[in-house]
């Protein structure tokens, strides 16, 4: 988990890249996705609307044609100009003809202007002629208007009464024709209409009664739907087209969510409604929406996963440059980066390598200069030392005490200069790889004892004790005896210098398994501050405190010691606590017989 978190949330720059990638990739995906969804939805709504309205228009035309045809049949105009009724035989002949001509006519009758039936024909047996003067069909037709009655429902299907005046050649009304017409064929046609696999059409008459039940047979024919505000609106002439906010509703017939459209049929005053269950109408849209969501989701997840990868890849060369720059800062001028991005970063890498080469060359020149300078200084300072020594010994004659004191001071300064030149030469040799070490199996007790003997006067001068009690059977180690002395002189010399008067120094050995002999130089001196400990083996570094300000040194001793120990195949380290003292330790490989 931690690795995953580290992978995603790396450095600050990586996070910035990740965030940038996420925003740059996700925002367009979201914008395009939302536009796509909106456009698809809008287009789909229009498609549904067009489909429903087209079907409504088709059925409206069919209905209007049906009534134009049936009314056209009974809008009778006779060829004579007299204001008299048609001869009875001709009436019956005409009625037979009408019944035969159009199968929708079930019953038809001629009515005199005073409302008495004069002839009647039907496809079924009917009673005798009667007085229909009170019927609305007669009364309207008598006034010269065609009549389309309300739909009524019989066991053989829905019917409608129509009536029309019969006129003579002069346009005078001479009789009235009233017919009972079956509209079953028309209703069957509407019932058979289908939108998609579940959409249906239905008709509602002027009273709000359901004429056709569509393909959805849940509600009985003739049911009163006038309670629906939508039906009332359509009967009132308001069209709804499947595009409005309210055009998705619970179906009037089905009771499930539908997309609806509806209009009024002008000729009859009926409402024709299309309802398409959303489940069916939006099936494809739903699939597309799910697909768009899935694609967007996968794309964003891919961006989310790939962004850290890209960021890390982009930052790889920068990280490599940083690591190599760190090495250069530690003096390793042979550090090189290998960036193959073929872009500005590759150029930067090449420039870095040139810079490293330049620094390396500069370091070589400096080392060469130090080596030459130290080498050339060694002879004059040695000569100076010799002559001062001779002068102090009176080889040049007696010298006054004051001059002797001056010469002694000059001698001490010269000795420091001799030490500095020697150290510089050692450093230069070390860095140029020209330090000469001759490793052989030796008993390190001898060079240590010799070194301690050499340092004894210095320790005595400060009233300090140096303890060295090596075990009798200490294994031989691989080391250079002369260099071993140099190490001990440096470490014990430092211990003497940085331990107050009366302090104690202990030199001891410790075997680490069968591989190493570790030598410890322990003092109870000033100790080293924690912030100085990291730099203690660097060239020219000296701990600067009030306690050490009087102590002279070049700052090269520990650097040289570290180089020598490592050249002999060992390691050097220390433990120190300020005010309590330090223990410097170095290991050397045990020499096996």
């Amino acid at each position, binding site marked *: 988990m931690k690795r995953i978190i580290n992978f995603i949330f790396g450095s600050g720059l990586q996070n910035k890249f990740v965030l940038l990638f996420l925003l740059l990739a996700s925002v367009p995906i979201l914008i395009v996705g939302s536009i796509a969804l909106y456009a698809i939805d809008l287009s789909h709504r229009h498609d549904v609307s067009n489909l429903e309205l087209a079907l409504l228009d088709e059925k409206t035309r069919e209905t209007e044609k049906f009534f134009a045809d049936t009314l056209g049949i009974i809008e009778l105009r006779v060829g004579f100009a007299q204001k008299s009724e048609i001869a009875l035989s001709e009436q019956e002949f005409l009625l037979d003809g009408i019944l035969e001509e159009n199968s929708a006519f079930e019953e038809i009758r001629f009515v005199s202007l005073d409302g008495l039936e004069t002839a009647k024909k039907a496809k079924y047996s009917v009673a005798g002629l009667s007085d229909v003067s009170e019927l609305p069909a007669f009364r309207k037709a008598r006034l010269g208007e065609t009549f389309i009655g309300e739909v009524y429902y019989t066991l053989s299907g829905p019917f409608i009464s129509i009536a029309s005046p019969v006129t003579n050649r002069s346009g005078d009304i001479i009789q009235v024709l009233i017919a009972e017409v079956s509209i079953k064929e028309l209703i069957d046609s509407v019932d058979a209409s289908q939108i998609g696999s579940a959409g249906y059409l239905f008709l509602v008459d002027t009273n709000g009664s359901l004429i056709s039940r569509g393909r959805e047979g849940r509600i009985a024919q*003739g049911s009163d739907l006038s*309670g629906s505000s939508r039906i009332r609106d359509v009967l009132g002439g308001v069209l709804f087209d499947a595009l409005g906010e309210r055009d998705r509703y619970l179906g009037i017939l089905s009771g499930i969510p539908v997309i609806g459209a509806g209009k009024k049929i002008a000729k009859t005053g009926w409402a024709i409604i299309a309802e398409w269950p959303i489940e069916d109408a939006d099936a494809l849209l739903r699939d597309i929406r799910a697909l768009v969501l899935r694609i967007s989701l996968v794309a964003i997840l891919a961006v989310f996963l790939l962004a850290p990868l890209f960021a890390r890849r982009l930052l790889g060369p920068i990280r490599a440059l940083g690591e190599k720059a760190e090495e250069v800062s530690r003096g390793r001028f042979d550090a090189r980066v290998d960036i193959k991005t073929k872009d500005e970063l590759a150029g930067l890498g090449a420039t870095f390598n040139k810079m490293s080469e330049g620094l390396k060359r500069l370091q070589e020149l400096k080392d060469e200069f130090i080596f030459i300078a130290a080498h050339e200084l060694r002879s004059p300072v040695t000569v100076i030392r010799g002559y001062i020594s001779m002068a102090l010994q009176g080889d040049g004659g007696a010298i006054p005490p004051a001059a002797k004191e001056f010469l002694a001071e000059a001698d001490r300064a010269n000795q420091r200069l001799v030490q500095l030149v020697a150290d510089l030469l050692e450093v230069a040799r070390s860095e140029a790889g020209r330090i000469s070490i001759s490793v052989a199996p030796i008993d390190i007790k001898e060079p240590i004892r010799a070194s301690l003997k050499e340092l004894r006067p210095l320790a005595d001068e400060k009233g300090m004790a140096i303890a060295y009690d090596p075990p009798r059977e200490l294994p031989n180690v691989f080391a250079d005896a002369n260099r071993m002395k140099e190490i001990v002189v440096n470490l014990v010399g430092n211990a003497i210098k940085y331990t107050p008067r009366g302090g104690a120094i202990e030199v001891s050995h410790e075997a680490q398994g069968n591989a190493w002999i570790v030598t410890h130089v322990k003092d109870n001196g000033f100790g080293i501050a924690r912030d100085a400990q990291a730099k203690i083996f660097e060239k020219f570094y000296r701990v600067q405190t009030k306690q050490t300000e009087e102590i002279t040194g070049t700052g090269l001793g520990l650097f040289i010691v570290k180089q020598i120990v490592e050249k002999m195949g060992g390691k050097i380290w220390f433990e120190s606590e300020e005010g309590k003292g330090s223990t410097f330790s170095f290991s050397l490989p045990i020499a096996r017989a």
Partner: protein
Amino acid sequence: MAVLIISSTILIFGTLFGIYWWAGALRVDREEFSANVLPHHFEREDVNIALVSVKALYFVPANKRDAIRANWREVLGKHLERLQEFHTLESAGRSALQFEIDSQPVIGREENTFYDSDVTQHGNPEALRRISKELEEGGYFSEARDGYRVFLILYEGVGASGSENVALVSSAFLALPEYGAAATTILAHEFYHTLGIPDGYDLRTGRANSNDIMGEGRARPIEKTFISSDTRARIGF
């Protein structure tokens, strides 16, 4: 920065799902319906006719035992089934009609001349009145039933008449071929009088003021007649 990435991620996914649920999401309008009234008696809205229980019987005057029709139950049952279909259609399924037919004819106490009137032009309401009275005295109407009760008397005599809860139809209308297709219509016409629906024609002149089963349509076959929308509205169909 990590917080910014997490916030952006939440925002991105939140926006994605928000877009999905918002763009083209299903929103359904609530259709407003005004409540329909319950089916009820033509003149009395408090009398519910959602269920109409018809009990049919064959009433034979004492002197007409020999004229008892052998298949009267079968014939009556067939017409009542057609009436049942018609009633279901016209009420748009809002009112149910159930019926039962007595197994045996009811023999009247009197002879047919007692029940029949001279003029049957108005449907022989006298026979209906007298037979109803006799049946009531015999405790025939006291039996409790569910729904609105209707007694339909198939009368071995003349005439057809209907009034509150009771209708009478001559067996001749149902059995004789000359009444043919309109036989059930006659039965239905009288039945609807029991629900309070008045005639749609003038009893005196015969002039129709409606085209439906109560008026001009009473002479058509039951398959071709109907109850007018005005009447249906007034009885809550």
